[in-house]
């Protein structure tokens, strides 16, 4: 853990060195979220409703999924670029060090320029919670924290699978990007609007719904089932098989040479 924090510090120092470029990145990463939310708002203006869901409720889901996605991008970018490490032969260098390969890959690149988008989505989340009259009670905050942590763990799992695939086909980790981005986009709306096969995919295959729709049902007062509230704990288990897939794949790793 101490090693990881020193990685974080070095990354932050390196990135704020170019101050103007860093600020420009923060700005550019944030407007994407603003425009997407505006898009959702305009759709609600054009149509009277989305099944039984209000704009505030959808904005809540939007903020939760975008917050998790952006924090995951900030922390796990290094794993997302695992294929580049393989191509450059960097992995060989990491393997000879007495530290975990995952830790080193994560520490190699931390995208602090995502911080603007993270804060922005946190603000949207707080506004949404306020306008929905959800109490900031201990229980509710605990569930929100579990949602974010569970979500991060699921994204970590997706990234690990992407990194594992890129061991076999050096051009492979696009899959992780597509699943992360697609999952994020899909979770901006309540999953009840999707067809059954897609709902099943988002709940049981890659359990994005357990860190968004299902626990939010409880927070929105649409369900009293505590099992819904603590679904992130179950969804988070997704990372375990991903971790083993990565471990197994690493044992097949052959250097790309040079």
């Amino acid at each position, binding site marked *: 853990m101490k090693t990881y924090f020193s990685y974080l510090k070095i990354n932050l120092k390196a990135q704020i060195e170019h101050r103007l*470029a860093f600020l*420009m*990145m923060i*700005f*550019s*990463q944030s*407007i*994407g979220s603003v*425009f*997407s939310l*505006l*898009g959702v708002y*305009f*759709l609600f*203006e*054009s*149509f*009277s*409703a*989305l*099944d039984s869901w209000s704009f505030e409720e959808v904005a809540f889901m939007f903020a939760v999924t975008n917050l998790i996605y952006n924090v995951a991008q900030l922390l796990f970018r290094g794993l997302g670029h695992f294929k580049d490490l393989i191509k450059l032969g960097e992995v060989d260098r990491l393997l000879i060090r007495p530290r975990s390969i995952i830790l080193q890959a994560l520490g190699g690149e931390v995208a602090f320029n995502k911080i603007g988008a993270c804060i922005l989505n946190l603000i949207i989340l707080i506004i949404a919670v306020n306008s929905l009259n959800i109490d900031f009670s201990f229980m509710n905050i605990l569930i929100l924290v579990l949602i974010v942590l569970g979500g991060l763990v699921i994204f970590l799992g997706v990234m690990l699978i992407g990194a594992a695939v890129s061991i076999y086909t050096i*051009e492979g980790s*696009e899959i992780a990007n*597509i699943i992360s981005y*697609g999952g994020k*986009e*899909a979770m901006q*709306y309540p999953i009840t*609007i*999707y*067809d059954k096969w*897609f709902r099943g995919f988002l709940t049981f295959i890659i359990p994005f719904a357990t860190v968004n729709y299902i626990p939010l049902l409880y927070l929105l007062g649409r369900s009293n089932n505590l099992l819904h509230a603590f679904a992130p704990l179950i969804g988070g288990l997704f990372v375990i098989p991903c971790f083993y897939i990565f471990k197994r794949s690493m044992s097949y790793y052959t250097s790309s040479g040079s």
Partner: protein
Amino acid sequence: MRKYFTFFKMRLLAGFQYRSAAWAGVGTQFFWGLMYIMIFMAFYRSSDGNSPMSLTEIVQYFWLQQALFAFLFAFNHDAKIAKSIISGDLAYELVKPLSLYKMWFASIFSSKLAATILRSWPILLISFLMPGTYRFVLPSSFGVFGLFLVTLSFALIINVLLGMFMYYLMFITLEIKSTVTIFANFSSFLSGGLIPLAFMPLFITKLNYFLPFRLGYDVPLRVYSGNIAGSEVLISIGLQVIWIIILFSLGNLLFSKRLKKIVVQGG
């Protein structure tokens, strides 16, 4: 002219080499199309039937959008060209007795075209075979199809001409990623890439009449789906021609002015 056409042909053939990347793209785009259609179907279910586009029109819009994704997606940029601006490698291009602006236009246009040709037909083919509401259908008449092809061709030209301003901005900012992100966010918001422009509030629609973005994206898709027809299409074609002339002259002028000031360091 012939020189630039050679560039066009060269990059087109090179673009056709990336076939496995194209198949991955087909899968992703197909999935996006499905997801957008599902979201809009839910909105239509709960609407009072008073919407600016019908559900069938929206379905046509999204399948075409996904089929033409490689061309229309504003975030797609030519990494090699962008890098040559930052690294100074464009000095090699400047040695050639050609206009950099026209050369880049030709090569960006052709590489986008190659990527689109590879991806579009499988997406359209599968979407033709989709069941029920999801199905992509032929336009209502040959006339509509003809007008679609005309507006689409002009739209693609406008699309690349607008993108040229993004590379121009890179000369000033010397930053690839944030320049692309800022430019592409505004461009996709105003062109119909984020949500179809028919669903935008009135003030943005009014603003858009004075801007070229919709002419490079929204117009052909709505012509195909039958959402706009008759004189409105003819007016759009006229506007497209006028904007092509304006954007080309402006871009050419800005590039030649900027290139006089350019400093390439080292060697």
